[in-house]
């Protein structure tokens, strides 16, 4: 009965938003309220709370698939998988204990394992969503291989809720590795980047890398014997609290990231070509994903244009993660050709522009929200 009430609430909220052409701000646990462009709700705006739309719909460990409602707590979901010796291989960031599956998929952020096991989008098999015309639609499914129709499921990943309300998500899951060991090597930044790339180009069971303050951390995962051999090849000292270290990098509780939340500083996320040499930007850097993710902690007044230009020159893009987004857009500008496609897709999925205006790119809105 409670789920029926929640389902009615979601449907009614969307129907009313359509009727009144009034924006809806989709919100799960709110763990990523900071992420993306700010969209302060006013009295005329409705927050669509999805946290009651929760529960595991289906879980078959031998099928490697779990289906859950979007409001399901990520912690509950991962606990269930853990009990069966399985995991979400993309190691989703939590940022707070309130985080939900829907928010995880909508934000499209992946954790330390991403460079070695794939991103959240790589594990999404299917979604059920509520579109901007009030229709409930299903795409993809619970099977590993499915090429029927366009891949709308993965299109939802990272769309920040601008294309519809996620109702259910089916994810591929993987077995948890038998053993994990975190190694630490003292080195310089250029050498660390090169070392990380060599690790990726060789058949070693590396599952995470991180460089900061002259130390390169490497996590190896797999059967005990393979982990031991990998350690002997890579060298380095074993870190005793490896699991805590990676969790603090994943959830930004590590001091480097905490500084990014201060009023005087900004934290930028630069996703670039992994082989790009050290970036010369003011501030401090933390490097993940075998060189492909460079976090920049910098003074809040550092020119965003210069940061974005450097990221683009290095084959990627820059996101303002923590910082003042009133004058700087959170996300890297799109080329005019890509922006046009974004606008047209938004128009098709959400013709009245009710879902999360401003949050991703304000300029994709089909019409001005009231």
């Amino acid at each position, binding site marked *: 009965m409670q789920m029926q009430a929640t389902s009615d609430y979601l449907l009614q909220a969307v129907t009313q938003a359509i009727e009144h052409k009034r924006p809806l701000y989709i919100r799960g646990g709110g763990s990523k309220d900071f992420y993306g462009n700010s969209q302060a709700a006013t009295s005329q705006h409705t927050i669509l709370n999805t946290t009651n739309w929760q529960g595991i719909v289906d879980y078959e460990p031998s099928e490697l698939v779990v289906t859950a409602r979007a409001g399901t707590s990520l912690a509950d979901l991962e606990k269930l998988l853990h009990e069966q010796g399985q995991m979400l291989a993309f190691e989703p960031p939590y940022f707070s204990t309130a985080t939900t599956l829907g928010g995880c998929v909508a934000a499209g952020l992946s954790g330390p394992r991403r460079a070695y096991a794939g991103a959240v989008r790589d594990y999404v098999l299917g979604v059920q969503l509520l579109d901007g015309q009030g229709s409930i639609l299903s795409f993809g499914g619970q099977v590993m291989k499915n090429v029927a129709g366009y891949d709308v499921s993965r299109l939802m990943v*990272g769309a920040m809720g601008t294309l519809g309300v996620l109702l259910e998500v089916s994810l591929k899951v993987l077995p948890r590795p038998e053993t994990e060991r975190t190694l630490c090597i003292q080195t310089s930044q250029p050498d660390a980047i090169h070392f990380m790339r060599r690790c990726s180009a060789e058949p070693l069971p590396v599952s995470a890398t991180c460089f900061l303050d002259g130390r390169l951390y490497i996590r190896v995962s797999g059967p005990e014997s393979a982990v031991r051999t990998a350690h002997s090849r890579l060298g380095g000292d074993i870190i005793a609290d490896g699991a805590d270290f990676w969790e603090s990098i994943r959830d930004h509780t590590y001091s480097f990231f905490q500084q990014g939340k201060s009023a005087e500083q900004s934290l930028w996320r630069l996703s670039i070509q992994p082989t790009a040499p050290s970036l010369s930007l003011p501030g401090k850097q933390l490097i993940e994903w075998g060189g492909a993710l460079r976090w920049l902690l910098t003074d809040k007044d550092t020119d965003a244009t210069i940061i974005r230009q450097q990221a683009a020159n290095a084959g990627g893009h820059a996101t303002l993660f923590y910082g003042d987004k009133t004058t700087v857009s959170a996300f890297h500008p799109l080329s005019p050709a890509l922006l046009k496609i974004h606008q047209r897709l938004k128009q098709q999925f959400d013709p009245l522009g009710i879902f999360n205006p401003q949050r991703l790119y304000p300029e994709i809105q089909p019409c001005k929200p009231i």
Partner: protein
Amino acid sequence: MKRKQLIAAFLQFLPEEAVLYETEELRPYECDALSAYRQLPMLVVLPRTEAEIIKILQICHAEQVPVVARGSGTGLSGGAQPHAEGVLLSLAKLNRILEIDPLACTARVQPGVRNLAISEAAAPYGMYYAPDPSSQIACSIGGNVAENSGGVHCLKYGLTVHNILRLRVLTIEGELLEIGSEAFDSPGFDLLALMTGSEGMLGIITEITVKLLPKPETVQLVMAVFNEISLAGEAVANVIQAGIIPAGMEMMDKLTIHAVEDFVHAGYDLEGAAILLCESDGMAEEVASEIEQIQAILRASGAIRIRVARDEAERQLFWAGRKAAFPAAGRVSPDYYCMDGTIPRKHLARVLEQIEQLSEKYNLRCMNVFHAGDGNLHPLILYDATQPGELEKAEAFGARILEICIEFGGSVTGEHGVGIEKLNQMCLQFNDAERNLFHAVKAAFDPQALLNPGKAIPELHRCAEFGAMHVHQGTEKFPDIPRF
């Protein structure tokens, strides 16, 4: 614009041999590997550069001429079937590997490059490209992206969508879209995923950056024989439940085993009802421990015989049998119809049972080979096209298999695409609102529907007609599937 004017316009910037219009020149393009359906295009163009493609598209867009892209023509669902009033855009001449970057683990290639050629070029660096459709010796990477092709290694290493980073795509207007990047993600919507598997309906791919993986240090293969196919199916679930993701897990039924053994002499056991091939790759220690575990699980799951390939040559031989299943079908039957459906693995035994019943009903033999690890079935329906009515029976049999896949929560295509072959079944897998959204996605890229029209996503009227065909004694087959 008349055909002649169009030819003249193309000859302004293309050499004579790059514009084909005589019937005998067009004939090789009349179908892809789904040869039951044939259609001559109005004309064929063979550009060599992206700049030439832009001009071709601009002309076609201005003149409202449909454009169908084609790679090597190995597609199995008629996705590259020409349009009678359209231009067939062959990308075969864009066949250069532009760059291999072993440290970035990437290769930048043109769409006409063969799948296997990428791994061959990467081999000196100790790397390879993982998705390996069975046609990899011939199929082009552009076609792989268009169909989101899979293969034996997909359970562990993913489909095409998991193994590409960046695309250069031209819209029908000839505008360039740079989708994805050399980085691991891009801002905005995941257009890279949307483009992958879109069957040439959204844009023309002119360049692809693929991910390369380091070649595993060791590879080992186990072959297990089962007396009952359902036991083999359970064995697959047991291996995965134990926390092992094999690099490949393939199954063949008795009819297939006999057909391929006669052909390849792979040393298969002819006594059993099913053979399971299970491969492990990784570091030597990892593989040794996995192979031990796999053998124990298969034994406990009822395997009557287990063989570990003695050496690389024997491993290749065991695989050669599986990979020759399709040509082997061609040897035991004048014609065969290859299906491609996916089901949750747990329903394998029940689905195979139903296929067997259909085989009796239609009086047509059916060889079953499948990617057991990911539930992707490839029933090969054997028939003789010279016998009146057999093709129609084979098609009806195949269509029913796809419907069964949907009933069991699967999909009408795992890796071959919808093309023209499975349009009717798309009406069952998706309701009208979902199909409408597909059309809306198409419209966002190609508002006038000039790219590969009539493929992949059925029009609503087609589904209405198809739905009506299935009303039997007033009872709909799938009452829970919304209809209009």
